[in-house]
């Protein structure tokens, strides 16, 4: 079978200004990830799992994407990140949520899959697990970009002025509405 690697870089109201960075970043993710799909090279025997982790890892390091470095901010101005990974031969999977100041949550998710009998870790326990397994705790707010700060400022201004803030409400019981923002 011909190996294939397919990626996405998020959906929503992506502005024209953000398109070039996303397209460049996705192509870079493919170029790094595809090396893991080619059999008999120096990196691997051709692993779909390695390929998706590597491709996502590239985009997590790229501030053009809403993941890892460049993640959207919560109302308190913090980046809380989450990820999941799954392989289709034995249906093994790993998931993490509410991590902070860790660059590659996708690799933490894979670590959960491969090193625990559990599937999903969250919050402080997930953070502790990551650090215990060698992931670097970056200085506080290291994942925050200027674009993310500006987006939160704009969100708060819109909220204060009563304008539509699309789905990103701070009330947990908000009704569904029809807008969208970039990117969920």
């Amino acid at each position, binding site marked *: *079978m011909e*190996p*294939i*690697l*397919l*990626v*996405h*870089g998020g*959906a*929503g*109201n*992506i502005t024209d200004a953000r398109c070039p960075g*996303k*397209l460049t970043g*996705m*192509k870079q*993710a*493919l*170029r790094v*990830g*595809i090396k893991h799909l080619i*059999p008999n090279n120096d990196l691997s025997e*051709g*692993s*779909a*799992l390695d*390929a998706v982790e590597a*491709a*996502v890892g590239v*985009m*997590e390091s790229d501030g053009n*994407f*809403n*993941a*890892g470095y*460049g993640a959207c901010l*919560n109302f308190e101005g*913090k980046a*809380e*990140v*989450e*990820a*999941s*990974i*799954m*392989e289709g*031969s034995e249906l093994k999977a790993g998931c993490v949520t*509410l991590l902070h100041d860790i660059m590659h949550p*996708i690799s933490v*998710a894979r670590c959960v899959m491969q090193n625990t009998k559990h599937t999903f870790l969250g919050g402080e326990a997930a953070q502790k697990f990551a650090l215990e397994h060698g992931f670097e705790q970056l200085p506080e707010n290291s994942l925050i970009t200027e674009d993310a700060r500006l987006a*939160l400022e704009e969100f708060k201004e819109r*909220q204060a002025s009563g304008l539509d803030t699309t789905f*990103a409400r701070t*009330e947990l019981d908000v009704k*569904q*509405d029809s807008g*969208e*923002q970039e*990117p*969920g």
Partner: protein
Amino acid sequence: TVGAVAIDCNGNIAAATSTGGITGKVSGRIGDTPLLGCGTYADNLQGGVSTTGHGETIMRFNLAQKIMSKIRYEGKTAQIATEEACKEMTERLTGTGGAITIDAHGRLGIYWTSHRMGWAYVKNGEIFYGIDHGKQFKEQL
């Protein structure tokens, strides 16, 4: 949100998704991304999916699993399954999103109901990519 789906030469499929959520979210909010069957799914017998978009909508609709079910039980191709499930989600729940899919035969599905979705794939030494509906670009790997 970012995501990836791959199939290797042995037919093994994997999927991965990572996100920072949405701007202004409540501290402690969890979206679809870490939820299997919502943001991510992979099964060599059916295919692999990674989704993106409005998390509350996608998790309530179980978008990834809906796509898999259309492939498994309705015999749909990855493209048809992805397109139908995304449209049904938005028709039912209003919220928008998209997904990328590779089925067990190596066929691709790419669709979104949002304004835009960035996507790209590499196959046979060529990169295909796009971000707007109806526009696709190609270049050498």
